[in-house]
């Protein structure tokens, strides 16, 4: 069953289209990723889905409720971890969570138990009476995820959950996010501009300039690049090149001391090639395509390049626009 449904969603800030006619569905119990450079429209989409922003046109439904017409129902079914922390730093971890429990009308006799449960789940139970301002970035993020789970939402939004975290906390957070659908019966909708992080998703939508340019599982998307790249170094590169071309029909190119070629099933291709070429092989390595290659192929640019250019303009624009209200 599709728990999130988005149809022809458009959001314009004056003449600037932050989201430009996107449609997609997310299946219940899966991890869905929105992947794209900063300013591609990811956060704007989340803000519309969680009822903070109204769309210019289009429809959005969560758990069967219209985000525009039934915001209260939608809010009950979602939990959110925003890009920037939304904890009260002057309260303790426990107080922040209990606040949330009251706000979401968790029954009186369950409040304490649920708060303690999620604190244990994110490994922060020992620190529950410490003020949040003493917490590290990773701890705060974990606490926010915990908070988002207290009211047992059906969808948990994670907007760039690992932004600003060190590599170790990032890895820990992912381990823990992966367990969420199974342990808490929740669907995850996340955004990221880190390609490696999108690998945990069941399905990914690649978004650029407010449009979805590709959608599918990580494996499917990588297939679109054309397969794996095999690098070979031999004693006689010229002769090998000829041979591979003749026997396997691959286009072989040269880069430094290595030859390389693209093939769909690199891992089964290699043994065959070595058997045929014989003794001259010095080294072989296989490179799997990454989502970065997918993005590169689709847009002609690497995802990081955009960060300082167009993306920031949109952000600046949105900020300026907000200030006027």
């Amino acid at each position: 069953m599709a728990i999130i449904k988005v149809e022809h969603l458009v959001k314009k800030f004056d003449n600037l289209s932050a989201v430009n006619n996107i449609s997609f569905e997310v299946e219940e119990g899966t991890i869905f990723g929105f992947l794209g450079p900063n300013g591609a429209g990811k956060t704007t989409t989340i803000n519309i889905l969680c009822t903070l922003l109204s769309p210019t046109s289009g429809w959005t439904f969560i758990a069967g409720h219209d985000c525009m017409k039934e915001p209260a129902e939608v809010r009950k079914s979602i939990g959110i971890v925003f890009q920037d922390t939304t904890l009260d730093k002057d309260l303790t971890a426990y107080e922040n969570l209990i606040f949330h429990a009251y706000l979401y009308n968790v029954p009186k006799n369950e409040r304490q138990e649920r708060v303690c449960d999620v604190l244990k789940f994110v490994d922060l139970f020992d620190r529950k009476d410490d003020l949040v301002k003493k917490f590290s970035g990773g701890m705060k993020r974990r606490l926010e995820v915990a908070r988002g789970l207290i009211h047992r939402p059906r969808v948990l939004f994670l907007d760039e959950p690992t932004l600003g975290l060190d590599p170790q906390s990032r890895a820990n957070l992912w381990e823990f996010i992966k367990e969420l659908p199974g342990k808490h019966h929740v669907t995850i909708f996340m955004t990221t501009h880190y390609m490696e992080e999108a690998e945990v998703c069941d399905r990914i939508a690649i978004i650029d300039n407010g449009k979805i340019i590709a959608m599918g599982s990580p494996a499917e998307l990588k297939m679109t690049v054309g397969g794996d790249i095999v690098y070979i170094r031999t004693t006689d590169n010229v002769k090998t090149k000829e041979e591979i071309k003749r026997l396997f029909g691959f286009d072989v190119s040269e880069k430094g001391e290595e030859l390389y070629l693209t093939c769909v099933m690199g891992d089964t291709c290699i043994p065959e090639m070595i058997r045929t070429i014989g003794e001259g092989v010095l080294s072989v390595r296989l490179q799997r395509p990454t989502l970065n290659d997918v993005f590169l192929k689709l847009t002609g640019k690497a995802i990081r390049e955009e960060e300082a250019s167009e993306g920031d303009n949109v952000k600046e624009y949105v900020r300026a626009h907000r200030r006027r209200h």
Partner: protein
Amino acid sequence: MEFNAIYVIVAREFKKFIRERSRLISTIARPLLWLFIVGAGMSRLVSPNTGVPYIQFIFPGILGMTILFSSIFSSISIIWDKEFGFMKEILVAPVSRFSIVIGKALSGTVISTIQAIIILALFPFIGFKLGIFQIIEVILICTALSFSISAFGIVLATFYESYESFSVIMNFIIMPMFFLSGAMYPVKLLPDILKLISKLNPLTYGIDAMKHVIFKFETGPMSPDFSYIIDVAVIIGTSIIFVIVAGKLFERKK
């Protein structure tokens, strides 16, 4: 009504208020300075045959000042909440905007009333003899006035996104509201234009109501400026209007 949500919004503000000793000390210190320094100094200047000694005259005004500062500060903490993101946590919750506004207004009410009671407890030191019913009546007025001013503060806070605007609010709203509230001088003695502005100021009526209770039988120039009924009606009326306006402004989506 979402009582759990309203309760927890008030509980949070109260907890933070108790923890921030410096905030408590500074909000108590300001009225004390005005009362005992400005009040004592001006007493020498104002003729004693106006009926009420000046230091006694400004006492209701100082209570009003305590409420004004404390309520507005409490409400514009919403701007802090916006800047540090906590407001988003509240806004995405399944809680009506109206309940959020009521919760915030009650937070300001609780905190301001506590401070006003602390200042009120000083009355014997400036030569007042107040009966228990007078004290209760003043506290009730303080509570209602705190609610009205807190709700007004929320309306203000909805117009600002960052704390940079704080000095603007301080200099162009809070200070004029204080000076044109009948706190320092009777409204009836002001020039026409200032009299008009004072009449548009909700704080004026709160202070006037307290004057009715504290200077019961006074008839001279220092006596209250409006009738008690009008005072009470304005306090209650503005409370309702400000809460509704604040609720509407909160409802707005971009």
